[in-house]
């Protein structure tokens, strides 16, 4: 990737896209380059480097820099913006042109940053974005006057409707040959520039507008002391209920499809190793995971919509008090909520947290948020052991148990954070300062793109990591073959049987049989593989009738309730998948913290499972 940057910089001019958070910068970048990128409404959404190209006019390389309010970097991602535009970044070359994106509904505020960027002595173009919203709020700006005042071309754009893009591309292309902005002194301190910006704004804004009236009205409700938290928790609860109920039908369809495929293969192919490889190995393993695609998409649908409407920042506001009680701030809520989908983007989103210790704490507790990969594990066990009935006015018991599992993860994350902030990550709490962006309709195209990307990533994992671990497991489960006159199922004599028996010694105190013990090993590659592995192991050790009944009923017969509960408790905490460990190493710059994370989570998992198993056995015994 870095090599590519170096090559590009030699041939094509580099345009750095800079702007305050919530100015529609990422949307404009996407519209210009056509590159897929998640668009979110909260500060710190752009934590990864995004680059793309415009080929139509002049062949430009675009770099989307993290949103910042100024060049005084306060967090890891603002630091990237500072380094790139000042030409001090390690790999990124100094840009040839700066595209400064400004929200037309908040000109005075965003202009201050434009005046600061002007000082860099790099040719610049200003995109006056969201002019459609400005028109709706009856704000009218004299663009020609604005351009004359700041001595830089100003182009009106509406990124989400792709308006003004041709003009903008042309202006950028011209700017590569243009001189740096003239040497007008708009002041050197924040205060001076703020004054200058307001003066320019009031001279060029023809009509002030009516303000974000709709947003304030919605906030009257959503930030109401009673309705606010109620709505937040209601939304989270609805999210988990929806994951169960909406996904039911598509999941059944996928399951039936896989089942018919297995039957079709069993009737067409002759009995033997190849059939076993296809049916017990690939279909039982990969199929057990693919079936969760609908649930994962529903979960992401909620997160993407909440992000793109601007609600996420409100959630951070409501959660700040709770987070403060364990020494974190509300900003940590955003990476943590992303971690419900996957800890990897969550850990990366922690870059927007300015305080290093807060950032470390957030990274360390991110894996405690129940990621979507654990959903398959929870779903199978719940379906097998929790009766599908309603309690207390139509609330599904299965959904309720799921909610409790998520809650257990959250509460333990808060406890762990409190302990970490008093020990290894000791220090004064960071402050909480967050813009609550105006509400916007969720951008359907971006939500769909986001869902498509998640589906692609999930299916690619199913096709690679999960497929490979399933095949390896199948091979280990089939060889060596059972001796003649064997009394047990063949798998007990295989390598998997041996590994399982050895591990069972460790896991027996928490109620795990050898099948579970062996499934935990490939579960390290990706958590959902544990279910794929159980699918394979039980498929090989069971009878035809059991296989047809599916993994859910197999487990129902094979495990006791305490074992199932203990298994659920285990997965609240552990194990980490390899990608989480890898990204933690990258983000913390060493092996110390990932090692610490794995160790503490393993200890918690073992402890929680032990207690769960013993208590459940005692209660049911």
């Amino acid at each position, binding site marked *: 990737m870095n090599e590519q940057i170096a090559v590009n910089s030699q041939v094509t001019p580099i345009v750095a896209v800079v702007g305050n958070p919530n100015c529609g910068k990422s949307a404009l970048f996407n519209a210009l380059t056509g590159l897929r990128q998640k668009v979110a409404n909260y500060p710190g959404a752009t934590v990864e480097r995004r680059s793309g190209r415009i080929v139509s006019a002049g062949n430009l390389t675009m770099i989307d820099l993290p949103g910042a*309010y*100024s060049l*005084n970097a*306060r967090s890891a991602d603002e630091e990237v913006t500072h380094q790139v535009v000042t030409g001090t970044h390690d790999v990124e070359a100094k840009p040839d042109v700066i595209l400064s994106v400004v929200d037309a*509904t*908040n000109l*005075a*505020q965003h202009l*201050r940053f434009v005046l600061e960027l002007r000082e860099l002595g790099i040719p610049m173009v200003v995109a006056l974005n969201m002019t459609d919203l400005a028109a709706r709020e009856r704000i009218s700006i004299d663009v020609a006057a604005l351009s004359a005042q700041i001595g830089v071309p100003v182009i009106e754009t509406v990124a989400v409707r792709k308006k003004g893009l041709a003009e903008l591309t042309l202006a950028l292309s011209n700017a590569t040959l243009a001189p740096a902005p003239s040497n007008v002194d708009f002041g050197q*301190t*924040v*205060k001076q520039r*703020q*004054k200058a910006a*307001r003066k320019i704004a009031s001279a060029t804004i023809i009509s002030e*507008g009516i*303000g*974000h009236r709709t*947003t*304030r009205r919605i*906030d009257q409700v959503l*930030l*109401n*002391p*009673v309705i*606010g*938290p109620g709505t937040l928790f209601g939304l989270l609860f609805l999210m988990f209920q929806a994951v169960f109920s909406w996904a039911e039908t598509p999941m059944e369809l996928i399951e039936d499809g896989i089942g018919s495929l297995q039957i079709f293969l069993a009737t067409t192919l002759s009995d033997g190793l190849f059939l076993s490889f296809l049916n017990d190995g690939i279909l039982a393993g990969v199929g057990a995971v693919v079936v969760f695609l609908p649930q994962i998409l529903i979960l992401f649908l909620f997160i993407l919509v909440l992000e793109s409407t601007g609600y996420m*920042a409100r959630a*951070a*506001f*409501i959660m*700040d*008090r*709770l987070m*403060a009680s364990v020494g974190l701030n*509300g900003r940590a809520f955003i990476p943590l909520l992303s971690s419900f989908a996957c800890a990897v983007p969550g850990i990366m989103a922690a870059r927007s947290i300015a305080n290093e210790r807060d950032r470390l704490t957030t990274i360390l507790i991110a894996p405690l948020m129940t990621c979507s990969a654990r959903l398959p594990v929870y779903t199978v066990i719940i379906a097998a052991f929790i009766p599908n009935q309603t309690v207390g006015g139509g609330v599904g018991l299965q959904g309720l148990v799921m909610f409790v599992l998520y809650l257990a993860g959250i509460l333990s994350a808060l406890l762990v954070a409190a302990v970490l902030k008093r020990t290894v990550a000791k220090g004064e709490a960071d*402050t*909480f*300062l*967050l*813009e*609550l962006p105006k509400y916007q309709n969720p951008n359907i195209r971006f939500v769909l793109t986001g869902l498509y990307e998640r589906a692609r990533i999930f299916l690619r994992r199913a096709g690679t990591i999960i497929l490979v671990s399933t095949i390896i497991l199948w091979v280990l489960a089939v060889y060596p073959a059972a001796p003649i006159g064997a009394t047990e199922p063949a798998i007990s004599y295989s390598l998997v049987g041996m590994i399982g028996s050895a591990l069972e010694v460790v896991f027996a105190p928490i109620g795990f049989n050898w099948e579970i013990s062996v499934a935990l090993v490939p579960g390290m590659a990706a958590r959902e593989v544990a279910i794929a592995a159980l699918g394979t192991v039980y498929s090989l050790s069971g009878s035809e009738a059991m296989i047809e009944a599916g993994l859910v009923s197999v487990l129902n017969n094979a495990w006791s309730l305490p074992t199932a509960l203990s298994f659920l408790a285990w997965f609240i905490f552990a194990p980490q998948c390899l990608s989480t460990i890898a990204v933690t190493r990258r983000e913390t710059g060493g092996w110390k913290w990932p090692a610490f994370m794995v160790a503490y989570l393993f200890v918690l998992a073992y402890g929680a499972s032990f207690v769960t198993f013993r208590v459940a056995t005692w209660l049911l015994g």
Partner: protein
Amino acid sequence: MTSPPLSEPLGNRKPGFSGTIIGFTSDHENIESAAVEQLREMGFAEGLQVSILHQNPFGKDPIAVRVGAMTIALRRREAKLVQVTQA
């Protein structure tokens, strides 16, 4: 010389308050502290209307304030650096 208008910290006020920013409390008279600079970067400035729209339901802190066209959430500790007067 007219005496400066009576001011008090924004952080001490309740939701429903509306007034004008008249200045910031800084550690030193001429050099602004990093916290004040950050407040300015977020959009706080002298002469702007400011009103407290909401406060956290669980402990009255943080608060959400309207400054200019923006709504900003901040903790009372930082809000106390903003000196306001009744409009």
